[in-house]
C-alpha cells in the first residue's frame, strides 16, 4: 500500500509533463512559444514574492536565533502534544490561513532549520500544500461582489484548515514514520 502511494508521488510529475506535452502537440499549440510566455511569468512571480520572503525569513530567523522560538515551543508543547501535533509546526499553522507569501517564507525557514526530509519538514510541506489562504481568498472573492458579511464561511473554512493540518500529521506519521 505504502509502496503504491510513494510510486504515485514519484510518477505524478512525469506523467503530468508527458500528458501536457502530448495534449499540446495534439491540439497544435505552438508549445515552445507558449512555454516561453509562461516561463516569463516565473520571473515576475519570484520578484513579487521576494519582499515577502525577506520580511518573513528575517523575522522568523531573529525569533528563532534569540531563543524566543524555543521558549514558545516549550510553552505550548504540553498542549499540542495532547493532540499529537509537534509544537514546531504551529507557526506555519497560524500563518497559513492568513497569508500565502508569508507562509512560503515560514515553510522555507522550517525546511532550512529542520531539514526538508525530516518528519517536521515533510509534515510542514504537506500542511502547506493541503490548504489555501482561507481568509485572503474569502476576502477577495466576497469583495469582488461587494459583500462584507461572511456568514459561516470562516467557520467552515477554518475548520477545513484545521482538519487538513490534523490529517497532515496523521498521514505523514503513517507514510514516513515519526
Amino acid at each position: 500500500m505504502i509502496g503504491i502511494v510513494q510510486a504515485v508521488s514519484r510518477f505524478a510529475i512525469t506523467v503530468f509533463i508527458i500528458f501536457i506535452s502530448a495534449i499540446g502537440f495534439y491540439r497544435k499549440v505552438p508549445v515552445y512559444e507558449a512555454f516561453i510566455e509562461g516561463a516569463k511569468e516565473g520571473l515576475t512571480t519570484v520578484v513579487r514574492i521576494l519582499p515577502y520572503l525577506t520580511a518573513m525569513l528575517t523575522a522568523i530567523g531573529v525569533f528563532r536565533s534569540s531563543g524566543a522560538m524555543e521558549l514558545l515551543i516549550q510553552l505550548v508543547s504540553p498542549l499540542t502534544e495532547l493532540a499529537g501535533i509537534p509544537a514546531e509546526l504551529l507557526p506555519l499553522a497560524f500563518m497559513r490561513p492568513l497569508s500565502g507569501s508569508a507562509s512560503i517564507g515560514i515553510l522555507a525557514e522550517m525546511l532550512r532549520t529542520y531539514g526538508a526530509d525530516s518528519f517536521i519538514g515533510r509534515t510542514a510541506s504537506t500542511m502547506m500544500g493541503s490548504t489555501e489562504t482561507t481568509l485572503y481568498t474569502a476576502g477577495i472573492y466576497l469583495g469582488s461582489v461587494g459583500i462584507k458579511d461572511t456568514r459561516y464561511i470562516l467557520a467552515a473554512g477554518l475548520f477545513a484548515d484545521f482538519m487538513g493540518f490534523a490529517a497532515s500529521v496523521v498521514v505523514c506519521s503513517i507514510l514516513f514514520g515519526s
Partner: protein
Amino acid sequence: MINIIWLVLLAGGFIVAFFTGQTEQTTQAAFDSAKYAVELGLNLTGIYCLWLGLMRVAEKAGLIRVFSRKIAPLLRLLFPDLPSGSPAVGAMSMNIIANILGLGNAATPLGLKAMGELQKLNPDKRSPSDAMCLFLVINTASLQIIPTTVIALRSAAGSADPSEIVSSTLAATLCSLLSGVTAALILKRFYRRREGRI
C-alpha cells in the same frame, strides 16, 4: 493582523535576545536570513519558470474547458438550488479545474466570474448565498494534483526526494475538503433556521 505577528516576531525576538545575551548572534541571524531569502528566490526561479511554462501550454491546449465539462454534473449535486444551465455552474467548474491543475493565475478570474454569476442569483445582495458560501469553502480547500510551490521549496532546501509529499498532500487536502463541505452543509441548515426566525 499580519502586521502584529511580524512585529511580535521581530521585536519580540530582539527583546528576548537582550535577556538571553544572544544579541550579537540574533543580529547576525537577521542579516543571514535576508541573504538566504535572495538565494532562495534565485533557486526558485528556475523551477517556477519551468512549471509556469508547462502550465501555459496546458492552458493553451484548452485543458480547463475539457475537464470542467466532466465535473459539472457533480457540482449540480452539490448546488441543487441553482437553476440548471446557469453560467455560474460552468464558471465554478472551470475555476475548480484550474485550481486542481495548479493554474492559479487562470483560476482567480474564473472564480471571480463565478462569484459575479452567483451574485445575480442571490436574493440578498449584501449577504452571501448558501451557494457562494459552499463555493468559497471548496475554493479554499486548495485541491491541487501537484503542489508545485512546495516541491520547489523542498528542492531548493536540498531534499533528496522533493516530490515525495504529493500523495500525503492529496490525502490531507481531501480530508480538509470533505470536512469543509460537511461543515458548510450543516451550518447552512443552522443559519437558515436562525435567519428565518429573525
